[in-house]
């Protein structure tokens, strides 16, 4: 897929792979991680070599990494994206009860999810486009609501340059006040919570050639620098 690009952009935006590469830098060593489908699933390809994490999949799988390509693979070992991971020592299987006990119980440390919209108070909308009227929740609500650290990896705007970081989500919510970090094709933004439901968006990093006012133009919530 091509990088998004618009006439007023001061510099190129990152590719989807580079968004994943950037988000992967925020996965702490030894953490238990669940990657959502889309850009988040690409993070596994870019984990820094000095970092080891354990990946959890809703299908009932802990401890996978690389996937089979082409016609290879065992349908009885599947990740939540419908791909077939390669068997590795230490891999463990369990049923869906256990898989969601792990999520709801807060045993997954960190999740990377895609988004349609993120609000200034860390609300996440990622399961349905209102005009379509039907969508898929899957494991996203359980993950967003119950995982201690939620990273959103997404393009900063829609394909028509409409901001996805908004005052208030207009798409159906996945979870409120859940997002901690937003990694996009132009910036890394922390959602800093002061008290329940109160937060500020802190601009932590900008893509090469972008400054805060350029990022602000395509962000509907005020950005602060540290």
């Amino acid at each position, binding site marked *: 897929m091509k990088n998004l690009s618009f006439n007023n952009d001061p510099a190129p935006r990152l590719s989807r792979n580079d968004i994943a590469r950037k988000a992967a830098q925020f996965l702490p060593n030894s953490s238990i991680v669940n990657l959502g489908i889309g850009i988040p699933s690409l993070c596994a390809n870019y984990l820094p070599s000095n970092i080891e994490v354990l990946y959890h999949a809703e299908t009932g799988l802990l401890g996978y990494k690389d996937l089979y390509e082409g016609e290879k693979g065992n349908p*009885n070992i599947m990740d939540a994206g419908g791909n077939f991971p390669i068997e590795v020592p230490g891999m463990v*299987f369990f*049923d*869906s009860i256990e898989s969601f006990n792990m999520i709801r119980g807060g045993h997954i440390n960190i999740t990377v999810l895609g988004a349609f919209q993120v609000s200034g108070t860390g609300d996440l909308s990622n399961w349905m486009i209102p005009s379509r009227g039907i969508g898929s929740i*899957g*494991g996203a*609500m359980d993950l967003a609501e119950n995982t201690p650290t939620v990273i959103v990896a997404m393009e900063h705007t829609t394909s028509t340059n409409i901001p996805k970081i908004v005052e208030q989500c207009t798409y159906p919510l996945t*979870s409120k006040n859940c997002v901690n970090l937003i990694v996009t094709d132009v910036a890394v933004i922390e959602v800093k919570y002061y008290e329940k439901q109160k937060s500020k968006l802190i601009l932590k990093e900008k893509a090469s050639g972008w400054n805060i006012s350029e990022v602000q133009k395509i962000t509907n919530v005020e950005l602060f620098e540290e």
Partner: protein
Amino acid sequence: MKNKKIYKSFSDSVKDIKNGSSIMIGGFGGSGGQPTRLMLALRDLGLKNLIIISNVAGISVTTGYGWPKNITPVDQGIFFETKQVKKIICSFPVTGSIKPISEIEKSWQNGDCEVEIIPQGTLIERIRAAGAGIPAFYTPTGVGTIVAQNKEQRKFNNRTFLLEKALSADFALIRANRSDTFGNLEYIGTSRAFNPAMATASKITIAEVNEIVKPGEIDPEKIGTPGVYVNRIVKRKLKDPYP
């Protein structure tokens, strides 16, 4: 003595399913753990007004989700193209792309069926609760979203939770690797998924297996579903092309 649990054919094992029955279909979504032969046998009954309960549903035919690339997928869409479904309860009925449109979405757009979308962790826990004799439970998932509409809420330790009710069905169609003649089931890898919980939450549980063996041939430590939950066992033909 004749073993009453072992059925000779898939069509025999599902023939008392009726118009309007509620049916859980096991697995996660994708081919591993899906009771594909039972689904096809049920479809061939040509029933109406079924209530289907599944997790990821009906996206394999359009996307290949969870199927080996050299096999044409079968998914829950087979019940929708034949207009057999009144309602599906699931967590993941469509992918992010609008095209190509799946049988479920088409059926929903035409007003032929209702689609109830439930967070996956809530769906599995509702099924677990039904099988475990628990009428309802509180979960934080869905608070502040449309999932919370018309649900009782309660605070514990300053956090809000939703009351979710147990979900049972008339029949569960499930899939395992091997069964012994008592119906003790062994699963492989991620093909467990919704199968063990669904086995406990229906009036009649029908298991599709690769092999039926003598008691003792499956290591008792590796039995994923004790036979007490399994009413019927049907063995696949050798070398069935479906995973």
